[in-house]
């Protein structure tokens, strides 16, 4: 690990100023991903701004009937929160599907949103990687790419976004609240929060230098059944090959509404409005599920080892839709 200086932030704005004003500085909250990467010198911050003491760990009801989740709420606390379990079960399930008990006790809401890909070549500093070292090339394109993305990829990067939590938040239409170094705040819809890799895979989010996440807000709970289905190599403690976060309302065999987001397959948590529109009003049958999958997977492509993800995503979606529309 490279050397770094360290400070504890006194306020969110002070934290934002400290990171914006110090070259090579980074925020540290739970640290479970950042320290892992620092040990391998994939991340080499020269200064860490510890935000753990900030009072951003509350979960509170919003006046609109939604939920405001502080940036520092630990993944385990959020999964166990009574309101999340009752009204946003897909989020609770997604959190519980990720990592281990120890990691969930440390990992934060904001940190989970910002976690980096687990692409083997991103982690291996002896190999080219455009995300880690822009312009050096992508080793995964011709490499061992079984875990990689099939949607939203580019010729410069095919890394998959690793989060489960963010997939559920994408289905729930979450909004990411931030504070900037000048003290101004903004709210970014999660659909606009992540950036596709294109030819700058090192730029992963819409956050500006020093801009810090303070909270994630959820709108009032959507009607329907909520499911998080995760397909992985082990029964526990493994990243998704394919996951589906779904909120589906069906009456008498007809689908009234469907919100669907996908993990393990995309360069970012994946959601396709056209697929949801195709399901609205449709009879819940295999033909409708297949048509929805066509829309979700449009433009998708495998890179060899991960070709299986396209049919696997189709089958997983069909299973989720069959389960959520059953009488």
């Amino acid at each position: 690990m490279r050397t770094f200086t360290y400070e504890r932030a006194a306020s969110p704005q002070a934290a934002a100023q400290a990171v914006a004003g110090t070259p090579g500085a980074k925020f540290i909250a739970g640290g479970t991903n950042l320290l892992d990467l620092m040990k391998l010198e994939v991340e080499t911050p020269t200064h860490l701004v510890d935000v753990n003491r900030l009072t951003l760990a509350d979960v509170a009801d919003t006046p609109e009937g939604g939920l405001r989740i502080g940036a520092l709420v630990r993944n385990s606390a959020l999964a166990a929160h009574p309101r999340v379990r009752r009204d946003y079960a897909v989020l609770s399930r997604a959190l519980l599907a990720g990592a281990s008990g120890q990691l969930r006790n440390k990992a934060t809401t904001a940190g989970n949103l910002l976690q980096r890909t687990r692409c083997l070549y991103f982690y291996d500093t002896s190999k080219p990687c455009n995300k880690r070292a822009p312009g050096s090339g992508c080793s995964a394109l011709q490499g061992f790419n079984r875990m990689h993305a099939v949607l939203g990829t580019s010729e410069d990067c095919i890394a998959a976004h690793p989060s489960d939590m963010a997939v559920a938040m994408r289905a729930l239409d979450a909004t990411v609240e931030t504070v900037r170094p000048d003290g101004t705040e903004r709210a970014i819809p999660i659909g606009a929060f992540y950036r596709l890799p294109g030819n700058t895979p090192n730029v992963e989010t819409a956050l500006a230098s020093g801009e810090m996440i303070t909270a994630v807000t959820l709108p009032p709970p959507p009607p329907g059944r909520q499911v998080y289905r995760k397909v992985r190599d082990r029964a526990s403690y493994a990243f998704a090959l394919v996951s589906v976060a779904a909120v589906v309302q069906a009456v008498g065999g007809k689908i009234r509404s469907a919100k669907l987001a996908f993990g393990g397959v995309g360069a970012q948590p994946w959601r396709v409005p056209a697929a949801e529109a195709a399901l609205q009003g449709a009879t819940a049958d295999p033909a409708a599920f297949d048509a929805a999958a066509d829309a979700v997977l449009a433009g998708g492509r495998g890179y060899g080892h991960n070709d299986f993800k396209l049919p696997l995503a189709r089958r997983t979606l069909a299973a989720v839709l069959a389960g959520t529309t059953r009488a």
Partner: protein
Amino acid sequence: MSKETGGRVPLTRRQALEAGAAVAILGRVQPGAAQTTAGVPTMTVSFTVNGRPETLTVDTRTTLLDALREHLDVTGPKKGCDHGQCGACTVLLDGKRINACLSLAVMHEGQSVTTIEGLAQGDQLHPMQAAFVHHDGYQCGYCTPGQIVSAVGMLGEHKAGWPSYVTDDLATGPTLSEAEIRERMSGNLCRCSAYPNIVDAIREVAGGAS
């Protein structure tokens, strides 16, 4: 160890290893005093370890695990993978289980750390320790301190009503079935695969927990 010492050597395996390594590298034994390198950023941090207040000045890079093991000679938490994948370093931080390898010592000012060394009451083993002995919940033993501390933390989480990935109904606290225990303990690996006995030990302590 020379021939002259003859019969029994009154050293534990750890003491023998430490003495051997220290003599080989440093020429002297100096427990509990890992050195910092001149010119690198250091910080002073205070926290309690197993109820005892400790103050350390460490290289900012020092993980909580290394602070415990190399600075405080609290060697129960083990360094397995050093990347949060194996759980051998599990400690309780303010009562909640975490991977000590994925945290910086300087992040824990004023906090309370409990390791395997802090579970027993004098000579009285913690019930989870006694159950691991009774059920032979280990083979080589390297993962055992992490398994036991993790199991203690896990029972606290269950008692607080936390659900798990395999919990059917998120609204009600589940009974600690074998499936629940296995899911909740998935962050602790055992390369000897003593899992069946580990699960038996935890079930015994959990008793009728529901």
